[in-house]
């Protein structure tokens, strides 16, 4: 009953109600877009970090830490890698020797990180082989090959087959140098990485570094990221001497990105809802004030205050609901469409590459977020209804009728 009355009341002042609804439609629509966009951005950041550089788990010498000191290496013979790979959760593993050094071409030097990799393992874990844009990936046929970033090659004037020299400290702290030939150029889309990293075969690097089975890092890619905690425990048991960390522990910015998704969504919602709140209060207040006479009459003939209050609240809820449903629908349609087409941010490519973000953003929104949006509208409507409804029940029937 009350609902029907409330619904009809809304349409007594059509234009005014439609204006409020339009504001809500746009607010919800924009929220769906903005949140899905930042979600898409965060997801692409996290997943590209996992797939291109971090993997799900990494094992290091317990003291390797942030300083990446070369003397803290693990002994990773092939057999040990096989053991880890056989774990049910693990899809693939690879081992790396990581050294800080200098790359010199005939023309100029550059400080870089040298990654000694197992070509097959690296291809399976980070798909480095797919990122070669010129020349060829490392293979057993060609000895002493090096892969360098396309951009770094340009900056240093190096080409395929150019001879370059790597200089670094060996395990005893002596400065060592080795000559390599550029076998291929890669482009991962992450500029700082591409300009600061080179890849060579781990066995060849270890010959110069010292210990044959040395690796500073073991990267482990899981079949199912959901099993992260279990897998971490099992791998840790297998590699008792090492410290096994997951991607969140390894890269605090990934963790922060994940946790900030909700924070930023909440901030967006609060801002937009506050802006909507003023419109809702104004409209409902007007609706109450222009019906003073009528409300006084209703109360005089016996409608109790509770019901009047409820009616105003219901009116506000219906008004807001009528705006939020098309808004949610529009938002859903937009997000679903953009999820497939993506948004091209290549006009910002320089900064995207600088921060390791891909240039296509695929907005996406989970059911939970739609619910949050709907809930936010309900809360806003309730908050907006209180003052007008309170105003309505405070009127004195006699005065109001004479109004």
């Amino acid at each position: 009953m009350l609902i029907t009355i409330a619904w009809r009341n809304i349409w007594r002042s059509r234009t005014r109600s439609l204006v409020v609804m339009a504001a809500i439609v746009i607010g919800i629509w924009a929220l769906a877009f903005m949140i899905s966009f930042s979600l898409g951005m965060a997801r692409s950041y996290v997943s590209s970090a996992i797939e291109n550089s971090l993997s799900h788990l990494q094992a290091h010498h317990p003291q390797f830490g942030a300083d990446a000191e070369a003397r803290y290496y693990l002994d990773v013979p092939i057999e040990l890698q096989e053991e880890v790979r056989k774990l049910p959760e693990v899809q693939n593993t690879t081992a790396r020797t990581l050294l800080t050094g200098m790359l010199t071409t005939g023309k100029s030097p550059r400080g870089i990180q040298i990654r000694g990799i197992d070509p097959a393992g690296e291809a399976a874990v980070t798909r480095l082989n797919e990122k070669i844009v010129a020349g060829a990936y490392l293979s057993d046929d060609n000895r002493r090959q090096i892969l360098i970033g396309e951009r770094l090659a340009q900056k240093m004037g190096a080409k395929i087959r150019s001879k370059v020299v790597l200089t670094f400290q060996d395990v005893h702290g002596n400065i060592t140098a080795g000559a390599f030939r550029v076998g291929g150029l890669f482009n991962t889309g992450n500029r700082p990485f591409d300009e600061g990293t080179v890849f060579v075969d781990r066995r060849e690097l270890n010959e110069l570094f010292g210990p044959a089975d040395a690796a500073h890092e073991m990267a482990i890619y899981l079949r199912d990221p959901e099993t992260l905690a279990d897998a971490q425990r099992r791998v840790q048991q297998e590699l008792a001497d090492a410290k096994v960390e997951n991607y969140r522990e390894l890269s605090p910015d990934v963790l922060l990105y994940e946790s900030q998704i909700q924070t930023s969504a909440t901030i967006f919602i609060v801002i937009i809802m506050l802006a909507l709140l003023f419109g809702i209060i104004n409209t409902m207040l007007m609706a109450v004030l222009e019906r003073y006479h009528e409300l006084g009459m209703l109360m005089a003939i016996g409608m109790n205050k509770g019901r009047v209050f409820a009616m105003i609240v219901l009116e506000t809820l219906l008004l807001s609901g009528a705006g939020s449903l098309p808004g949610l629908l529009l938002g859903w349609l937009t997000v679903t469409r953009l999820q497939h087409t993506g948004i091209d941010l290549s006009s910002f490519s320089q900064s995207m590459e600088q921060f390791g973000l891909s240039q296509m953003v695929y907005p996406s929104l989970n059911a939970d977020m739609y619910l949050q949006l709907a809930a936010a509208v309900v809360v806003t409507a309730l908050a907006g209804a209180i003052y007008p409804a309170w105003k309505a029940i405070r009127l004195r029937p006699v005065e109001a009728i004479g109004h």
Partner: protein
Amino acid sequence: MLIKLAWRNIWRNRRRTLITSAAVMFAVFFSVFMESIQRGAWDHMLDNVVNFYYGYAQVHQKGYWDEPSLDLAMPADEAFVQRLRQTPGVQDAVPRVETFALAAYDQQTTGIMVVGADPAAENALTRLQTHLTKGNYWAQSDSPQALVAEGVASRLQIGVGDTIVLLSQGYRGVNAAGKYPVGGLLRFGSPDLNKRMVYLTLPVARQWLGAEGVVTTLALKIPDKQTAPGVVAALNSGLDTTQYEVMDWQQMIPELVEAKALDSAGNKLVMLVLYIIITFGILGAILMMIKEREREFGVLIGIGMQRLRLAFTVWLEVVFMGLLGVGAGIVLGLPLVYYFHLNPIDLSVMGEEAVKTYEKFGMEPVLPAVVEPGIFIGQALVILIITTILAIYPLWRLARMEPVQAMRA
């Protein structure tokens, strides 16, 4: 007269005026706050990098920026430097020899950037000496000490008095290796600079690299940031551009300039949505205003008030409501922005992760707000434009209004 009338009219329904203005106030307050912080954070970051290292413009040998090799260094030609110094807007041209190198100490090595600098000129340009946290600045223009950024020092576990080993490739491919006592530690605001800078005096760096009489970079001291693009344009048309390249800071760090643009595009989007919603709120208020005063308008037109003057009054009313909100928003926002200008928001309270993330993006975890009149004026303009556009609606209603019918309403 009309102004007075309009002002009185908006107070006939105080509550509605207040609520509508409050909505505008909220939008203005929020936009001002957001923009001041955002602009402040980026300016702070760019200034950190530009003021403390790049300078607003640099001159190199043609091609050096794309392929920074010592072989593309230019002879330190005094006549040329003089010519740069005499360009209007340029105070000084500071010579540098810059190269990548490997720094080693004990068991540690790290890749770094070595800058061979003239102590006095460099200090005048980037105030290098103020970055010193330990040790002493070079006493002479050819002092043998190296000044090492704190990030490099902690990575190498090296301190003042220890000897740092620098390895690189010198001029025309010669091997460059040298040992230098660490004379002081430097702290830079930019985490990126902090992790990779080592300074030598110019003569020492030249000797180390076998690069006598050359410079890779002439950093221009331009006192006024705003004039930098003009100076660059003037130099580009005056100099032999087949031999030299002149770059302003925006060309040298395009990724940061672009990231700033991307970030502010995001903010603009939020503001746009906010303002659309506020627009609807004001439109709602206008609708109500017209409806409840239909009769009054009818009478006024009936007794001969010009529709245009009436429409102007209504426009004034709407603008007053808007400006009231703008004023309140600014009164509320200004002290807050000013407070955060003096006491920048420190994100390190958010924990280690936040600090590391900001570092990864090359930012200090500090967000100072800028106090810029332009931001406030911009908000007032936006509101003025919105209300003016919205006033078209009452104008249109009034133009079509039939006084007789309206009076019966």
